């Protein structure tokens, strides 16, 4: 039994926050899309041409999706390590492995939702080609 000192904050919250990495990527993607559109349309283009904006944001989207997939794969591995079983009555739910499995599973699920979210958010950029 050793007190965990400073690492308590890092390991504790750090690991917990890991499950929300994918939604955080979604959030950054969202904010950048919104901010870039606002600045592009009000400050950078006079003609209302949106092709450069669409290109850059599509590239950003690909990067964001890659990041989310990476999170998902990472979570998938943690989840599968030691087999399935994420539900309440599985024996041995009180051990460290099952906690890790749970976090892995939650990471996978959140990655799926974030993935869908990112695709939704980029849709308007691709479908609406004007600054109006």
């Amino acid at each position: 039994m050793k007190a965990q000192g400073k690492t308590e904050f890092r390991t504790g919250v750090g690991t917990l926050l890991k499950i929300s990495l994918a939604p955080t990527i979604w959030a950054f993607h969202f904010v950048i899309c919104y901010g870039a559109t606002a600045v592009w349309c009000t400050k950078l283009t006079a003609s209302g041409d949106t092709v450069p904006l669409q290109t850059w944001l599509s590239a950003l989207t690909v990067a964001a999706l890659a990041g989310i997939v990476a999170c998902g794969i990472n979570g998938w591995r943690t989840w599968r390590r030691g087999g399935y079983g994420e539900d309440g009555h599985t024996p041995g739910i009180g051990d460290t492995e099952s906690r890790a499995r749970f976090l892995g599973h939650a990471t996978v699920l959140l990655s799926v939702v974030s993935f869908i979210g990112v695709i939704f958010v980029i849709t308007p950029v691709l479908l609406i080609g004007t600054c109006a």
Partner: protein
Amino acid sequence: MRYSGTDRPQASGIWPPTEEMLAEPVDRAAQAAREDRLREAWDEPTGIAYWTAVNNDKVGAWYSLTALFFMLCAGVLALLMRVQLAVPDNQFLDADRFNQFFTMHGSAMMFLFAVPMFEAISILVLPAFLGARDMPFPRLSAYGYWCFLIGGIFVMGSVLFDSGPRGGWFMYPPLSTLDDGVGADIWLLGLSFIEVASIAAAVELIVGVLKCRPPGMRVNLMPLYAWYVLVVGGMILFAFPPLIAGDFLFEMERSFDWPFFDPTRGGDPMLWQHLFWIFGHPEVYIIFLPSIAIAAMVVPTVAQRPIVGYSWIVLSAVGVGFLSFGLWVHHMFTTGLPNISLGFFSAASEAVVIPTGIQIFVFAATLMVGKVKKSLPMLWIAGALAIFTLGGLTGVMLAIAPFNWAVHDTYFVVAHLHYTLFGGMIFPVMAGVYYFYPFIRKGKMMSETLGRWSFWLIFVGFNAAFLPMHYTGMMGMPRRVYTYGESMDWGWLNMLSTVASFVIAAGFLVFVYDLLRKKKDFEGRQRNPWNAGTLEWSHDVPEENWGVRTIPYITTRYPLWQQPQMVERMDAGRFYLGDTEFGHRETLVTSVLDAKPLHIQRVTGPAYITMLAAGFTGGAFIFPTFHIYGPAIVCGAFAIVCVLYWLWTSTAQIPEAPTGDVGLGLTLPRYASGSDAPGWWAVWITMLGDATAFASLIFGFFFYWTASDNFPPQDTTHADGGYVAAFAVLLALSWVATRMARGIHRGGNVAMGRILMAAGIVLTLTGGAAVYTAVSDLRPTEHVYPALICGLAVWLGAHLMLGVIGQGYCLARSLAGRMTPLYDADLHNVTLLWHFIALQSLVTAAVIGLLPGWMS
């Protein structure tokens, strides 16, 4: 054993306990004495001093009854409005009164009912879910409650004096900045005051969930309610601060004519809309999620089996928490923003449907595989889903911008939002009241018959009142009209809604009667009448004040179902902390992920000081409403003194012994500093919220830049670069001094530590003078640019004051011998505070010193 600042008491002994240790019988005789000691430590004051209680069950009960009272008040306002709208061209209420009423109805339901109710219920039941004795900071809950009560009465009372706010609960400028009455100030200051209390509660709830779980309750074992509390607490930290920043700007404009929202001087009313709805939309989910959390506690009990898809619920809560921050502009679809921008919010508004829907399917799946027991709470949950799904489906429709343009600000939206809030908040909370009542009133039950009456009255009344409103809105009836003409043909629909609204009211009357009526003792008195599996049902009947007899060791999600003899062992005193060696109130602090026991935390007991502090805080917010600033400043100062007194006398106390035996062969430290201590977490979380408010102000700076061609204006006065630079350097030095003081002090060099703390104070004060000089030539009433710079300076000034108080407090604690190298939590907390102050100072210096040069 002797300890030093660097060689500190450690936890030692056996962890985790073995089944044999748990199965070992307990010595009865020794238990009686322990129970007496605990009983004495947790004894509640009686008589007038009853109101000084800080126990979560008392404060939680007051809190929820007060919130219920405000809800009933707001409901009465709604009924009066319905009477006015029953027939065309009605003269029952005049326009001004009607406008006050609808403003207050919305504001009260949101700020005085929905959010406080979540906090109240959580304070009331969360410690029991977690097998904790109390919340980590009981006095903070009490302080929050008294703030809420004072602020709530002040705001709600204003309608009685015909001086209530009348600009709508969204308070759009310029209508509300131009308003002559005090109503807008009452709204801004009164509700800011309550928002501060809300954030305090959020901080406490987050720390409670992260650090006060019972030993062994890993994150994957937490009751689902705790997950929701964690997510919602986090959302409050990011959603409320933008509104507080907006309120700050708004009140500056109203009181001192700083033109943040005045388009004639470079301001922009759209900034308020952004700040308000960045708060306003997550707010809807802040209300909705905790109520669904109640459903997540009720459904497994009804199905008599663990929830199917625990991780899916967590996904859903966290996912909604994030996505809900990407919806705010759907309240601004008609403001003429570019279509692409609307598209983003349309997309996110649709995406949030997915995690929201998952919860419903998880409940359905659990009920599908379980054996459903018919019960009153489940009836309310089913009603909730019926109503909420309809509200959700109209939400999907509203998120499509072209449709939104057609029905925005009509009764269609009124119907939609009431469907989501009744289905997503009122009905689940009612389910929760029926479900938890035997826990709260220790075995007494509410009436099944009255409960059914109440349900059907509210359910039928609600649908009869609000379903037609979809159609009324489609026919073109706008929201917030105090009357309408005969020729509109809306009359019969409105009459229907009015009549039905009284049916809803009748249902609530039945409920309130049932809630408050005297219940006879023979009506049950079972400990666990629903045969639920979670820890709160291990409560003591009749009541004991200690929360739990012993803090259990948890290895399952539903310990009462899945761990043998759980309750018997808790009662017998088999588990942890079954005693209080020195007669203090104590609880266990455990680690975030795996709930490993870390140390014994002393918690605070009854006190008048919290009430006094709340009263003075109230004065500091309420006097400025009437532009009375002298007494406001005096109250503010007294409030600070009260809080300091409270911290000084009851937090981070040096313990009688460095460690204590908590039972089951485990010995834990009695003091923690730095990131081990809940107080440090509270500072961290609070400052995260504070940083969000600050970020909102900085967002304002960029917003004005993108929204205007002339920001910063061509020939304006800028902040003096030299002084800004000096300020940045001085603050950085003060920060370094504080950080160094922490390390040096812990190393044992107390004198040097004190010198550094004193140096910090001097540096901060000098820095404050520098920033004041830097902006002293600016005229904030002329244009929004100088106004925003001065606003940032005011914000900073308040933080520097806080920083100096922190530094001074540590110095004083050290001099008084209440802080030593071994017991140095205060210095750690203040250093953490300083990380945030330094960050804000440096960012501000960059924004007011460097950015204008690049922007123009």
